[in-house]
């Protein structure tokens, strides 16, 4: 391991690091919005939209991100739609993450105990009030572990952006290896960089899961 090589590569990795963080953040926020909207459409069984959401979720969950990206980046220009690589990455990540987040929220809503819903009904709550005061508060708390897992998953998926040459972390490492051949050093930095993002994040998320769980259910 040559530390000099590592040191010289750090500025470039820093750029990749920032880009990975930025793309992840935008992708995660977008995924949560799309996922929440989808799960609400499903919960309230809104006609037509409900069907569209179901189809979207199946397509998104059962196809690889890499192909989704190739489609956006290489195939769309052939029919006259040109999108920049970064925007392709963000769209792809949200397309993928939206369905994962939707499943997370829906799982939470479905996890609310039948007894809770019945006692809500027993005090006369209508469907909307039942959702607002019983199902959503408890359902969100129940979905936090799935959402946390999705967040970690989506950050890792940004490494696939390298296939459309977005200069995020993995792409930075691959470029450097291609140029200078020092694979050990660059791969080492790459793994450390992901660890720096993901280890603290997963600790924070676990802590948060416990807090939310205790705050809502007391155990």
């Amino acid at each position: 391991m040559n530390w000099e090589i590592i040191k010289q590569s750090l500025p470039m990795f820093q750029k990749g690091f920032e880009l990975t963080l930025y793309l992840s953040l935008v992708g995660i926020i977008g995924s949560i919005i799309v996922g929440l909207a989808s799960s609400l459409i499903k919960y309230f069984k809104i006609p037509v939209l409900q069907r569209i959401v179901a189809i979207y979720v199946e397509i998104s969950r059962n196809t690889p991100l890499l192909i989704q990206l190739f489609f956006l980046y290489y195939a769309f220009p052939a029919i006259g739609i040109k999108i920049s690589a970064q925007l392709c990455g963000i769209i792809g990540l949200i397309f993928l993450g939206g369905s994962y987040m939707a499943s997370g929220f829906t799982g939470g809503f479905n996890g609310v105990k039948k007894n809770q819903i019945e006692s809500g009904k027993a005090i006369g709550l209508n469907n909307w009030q039942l959702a607002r005061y019983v199902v959503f508060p408890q359902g969100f708390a129940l979905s936090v572990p799935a959402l946390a897992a999705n967040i970690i998953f989506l950050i890792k998926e940004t490494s696939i952006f390298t296939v459309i040459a977005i200069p995020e972390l993995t792409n930075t490492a691959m470029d450097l290896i291609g140029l200078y051949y020092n694979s050990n050093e660059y791969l080492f930095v790459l793994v450390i960089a992901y660890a720096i993002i993901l280890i603290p994040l997963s600790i924070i998320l676990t802590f948060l899961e416990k807090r939310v769980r205790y705050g809502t259910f007391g155990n």
Partner: protein
Amino acid sequence: MAHSGINVLFEGTNFTRLLGGLWTTVQIAAVAIIIGLILGIILGVLRTFHNPLLRLVLRLYLEFFRIVPTTVLLFLFYYILPRQMNIHLPGPQMATLVFALWMAAEMSDIVRGALISVPKHQRESGLAIGLSRYQLYRYILIPQAFTLELPATINLITRIIKTTSLLMLISVMDVINIGQQIIEANNQHYPTGVFWVYGLIFLLYFLIDYPLSWWANRLEQKRMENIND
């Protein structure tokens, strides 16, 4: 431009080549899944034992495969095995190894989770009728855990299959790599061929993964119904 893009799929041997690439993909996924399942179950059982050192080692193994993105895992094996350890595996075999180890790591966590959620009194009743530890796992815990873990396992399998799309990154001649070659070779005649080739690959992945996730969903729904009744 007299050619409609879709015909690129049927030009020469293109279609059979794509299916050949798909076969490579499927083989790698299948072998990795089988090895990963077996290894994952063993590791999952070991993780429920009380040996702290064993648990630590297996936990570290899991966390490593959890934290490092699969793309990076592939590159790690691709560069480090030959250059540092002088192990020269052909691409498909190396990819199988990476996917199998990854599957085993994730699987071990599913198995462990299912095993520890089998109610304690089941374990105690088993011990009370004089079962050995092996018999306890073989006849009581693993069969009960199996129904609990099945949906998660199927979902994991769909993830492995989707992740085989990364094979092209380490130069394996998978369906995507062959797709790219076909697109490049036919770009002159079929400018919209790219749309159809990627469209077909998209569809192929969907056709493999959709039945699996449909199955997982159904099992999960049944389980929820049973809990609520």
